[in-house]
């Protein structure tokens, strides 16, 4: 718990920056736009429709869409910017809608009185319409505030630090403490900011000076703090810092900590870990230089980036071709394989595998019509499944898509016979499952490889050399055990990484 709390200042500050800046930008757009729309009623329908459509995009998808969109524009596509833009878009609707309804729902007698005493159009707006609509506008701002604080937790997969780092990492590594800290912190933040906006409304309505000054001063302080820390963060991003990336699962957290630790110890460079990147985000981030190094799997590059057929290729050949492709096409260096594969594999309980005498997928074929298979959310849509099914002629009695954690429980309790597993998943060991051999090589090899981006490759050969010391040092069994230590025994990825580095000092090489 205490090591979770140690992360709180950094996560909370980043979360606050995102939320406050997005709300400021959202209001700066929505309130004037609402005023214009309330006057030019013709615009009301189209503008509110666009804002509503944005709102219906699932928030995670909206943030994720920002990444390729920004990349296409040649802008920084991961980190603060995509999260900020996505959150800003999301904050628009409630403020905009309430500004419009607040202004257009005013008592016409008030408008007439304002005209009657001789106000110009602008005086009417500022002295009568906006003050009278203020409670409604502020209600919209409160809605936006609470939403934005909540949705900002989804900034983590696009590479922006937030309280979501607790939640994503915690869910992946089954660290409930981390999830809890993240949820509580963001709930408290939402309550505090909402309270501030409500207090602002109260102070404006009561029209007493002291409370208004107090609220404005607190808001100013929060913004000043966020602004200063943000600028300092930008300055701190100095050229010689090495950024290690990690995707959103346990193995990646452990490996990024191992690489960070090894780089730090061997070269003294300052290292930062950006974790919980979305799967496709990581490679883009490497190319754009927002991360310098991360662990990828050879088959992923082979299938999704090189778009090569998955069946019938050998491990060394793929590794070599992928390495050449990355260097030639993208200036990315494949430093080397870590020594294990993390591939999609079919797995079943040892007891059933033995009783059916199944060791290879070919052995499974005659039993398949009486067996059921479970796959994670994407498995049955992936090229690997099509390839396995077609090259062996597998025809299962039943096919079920399940949440990965439920899937493992289901196979262990014999509710399902075969599952799609990742070959280094710790649960394979823990539940005494066996991985069925892919004897016809229908699934391409997924060697875990260290990829280094163009900048680091040019400027820091010492770092590349330090990373090279890790190649070939981690076997599949060891990786499974490390994953299990986190997933089942509740160790933190950082602790597991340290333990690994202690057991293999550089001098060994």
């Amino acid at each position, binding site marked *: 718990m205490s090591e979770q709390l140690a992360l709180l200042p950094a996560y909370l500050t980043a979360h606050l920056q995102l939320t406050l800046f997005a709300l400021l930008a959202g209001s700066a757009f929505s309130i004037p736009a609402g005023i214009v729309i309330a006057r030019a009623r013709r615009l009301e329908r189209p503008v509110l429709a666009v804002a509503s459509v944005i709102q219906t995009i699932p928030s995670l998808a909206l943030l994720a869409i920002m990444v390729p969109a920004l990349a296409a524009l040649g802008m920084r596509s991961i980190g603060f910017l995509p999260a900020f833009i996505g959150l800003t878009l999301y904050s628009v609707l409630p403020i905009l809608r309430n500004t419009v309804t607040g202004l257009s729902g005013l008592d016409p*007698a*008030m408008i*007439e*009185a*304002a*005209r*009657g*005493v*001789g*106000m*110009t159009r602008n*005086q009417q707006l500022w*002295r*009568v319409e906006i*003050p*009278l609509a203020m409670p409604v506008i502020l209600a919209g701002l409160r809605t936006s505030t609470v939403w934005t604080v909540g949705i900002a937790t989804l900034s983590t997969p696009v590479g922006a630090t937030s309280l979501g780092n607790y939640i994503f990492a915690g869910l992946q590594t089954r660290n409930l403490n981390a999830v809890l800290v993240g949820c509580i912190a963001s709930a408290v933040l939402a309550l505090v900011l909402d309270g501030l906006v409500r207090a602002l409304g109260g102070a404006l309505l009561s*029209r007493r000076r002291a409370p208004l000054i107090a609220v404005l001063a607190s808001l100013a302080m929060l913004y000043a703090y966020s602004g200063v820390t943000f600028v300092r963060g930008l300055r701190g991003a100095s050229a010689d810092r090495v950024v290690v990336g990690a995707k959103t699962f346990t193995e990646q957290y452990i490996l990024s900590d191992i690489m960070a630790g090894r780089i730090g110890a061997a070269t003294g460079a300052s290292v930062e870990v950006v974790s919980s990147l979305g799967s496709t985000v990581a490679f883009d981030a490497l190319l754009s230089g927002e991360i310098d190094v991360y662990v990828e799997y050879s088959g992923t590059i082979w299938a999704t980036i090189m778009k090569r057929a998955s069946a019938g290729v050998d491990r060394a050949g793929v590794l070599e071709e992928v390495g050449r492709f990355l260097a030639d096409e993208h200036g990315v260096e494949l430093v080397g394989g870590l020594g294990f594969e993390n591939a999609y594999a079919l797995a079943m309980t040892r007891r059933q595998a033995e009783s059916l005498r199944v060791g290879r997928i070919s052995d499974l074929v005659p039993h398949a019509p009486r067996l059921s298979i479970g796959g994670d959310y994407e498995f049955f849509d992936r090229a690997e499944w099509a390839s396995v099914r077609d090259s062996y002629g597998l025809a299962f009695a039943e096919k079920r898509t399940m949440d990965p954690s439920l899937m493992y429980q289901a196979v262990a309790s014999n509710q399902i016979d075969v599952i799609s597993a990742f070959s280094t998943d710790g649960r394979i060991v823990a539940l005494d499952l066996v991985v069925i051999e892919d004897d016809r090589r229908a699934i391409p090899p997924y060697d875990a490889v260290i990829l280094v981006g163009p900048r680091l490759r040019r400027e820091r050969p010492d770092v590349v050399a330090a990373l090279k010391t890790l190649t070939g040092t981690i076997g599949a069994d060891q990786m499974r055990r490390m994953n299990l230590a986190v997933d089942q025994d509740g160790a933190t990825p950082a602790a597991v990484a340290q333990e690994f580095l202690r057991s293999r000092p550089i001098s060994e090489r």
Partner: protein
Amino acid sequence: MIETQGLTKQYGQSTVVDHLSLSVAEGELLVLLGASGSGKTTTLKMVNRLIEPTSGRVLIDGEDAGTLDPHELRRKIGYVFQRIGLFPHMTVGENVAVTLTLLGWDSTRAAARVAELLELVELDASFAHRQPSELSGGQQQRIGVARALAASPRLMLLDEPFGALDPLTRDRLQQSFLRIRRQLKLTAIFVTHDMVEALVIGDRIGVMHDGRLVQIGTPAELLQFPADDYVRQLMNTPKRQAALVDGFLEARAK
């Protein structure tokens, strides 16, 4: 001082004010009397250009109101609304001073003027710090009048200012208004549909019916020489009501 020439307002096919021509002399109080929907409010609003006439024009001191800046015109004319229209987000004092702020008065001068006006409409100076919602209907009407008087306008337009009040309060406010009017030598157009109020307050009365001005004259002229049946009936209503009350009392006495 003020004259309308063929003032007309049409909404689509319907003519709500139809070629209305009248004039009000300096210091005179003209009552516009007519049934609901006869076009009284519309006429009044065309005078200070809250509504632009379809045709015809309004002359103020011989100047065509249509050529003046509408905001400045309105600041120079006091207007009391049919529905009062105090701003709920301002204190009573700020409501009274609203035209003064528009005219750029500094706050001490405006505050002094507000105190003066509150005294004029017979309210305690402490009312300045209250919210409009904390006032009774009669008090709100007084504030409405005070607000209209703030910039010392020479011309006042009043749209049924005492319409929604109980008879006693209305009577008191009418008396206050008559006193203020004499004191300030106001020129005013006063809209009402209450016959008695028209007789009590007006120097002259203009009777409107379906958007037209059917007769204009002093109360005595209207009572003695009604132009048509409508005016006759209208002028008879107070007498008829008095007769009803008398009859009722006699019946009780027996």
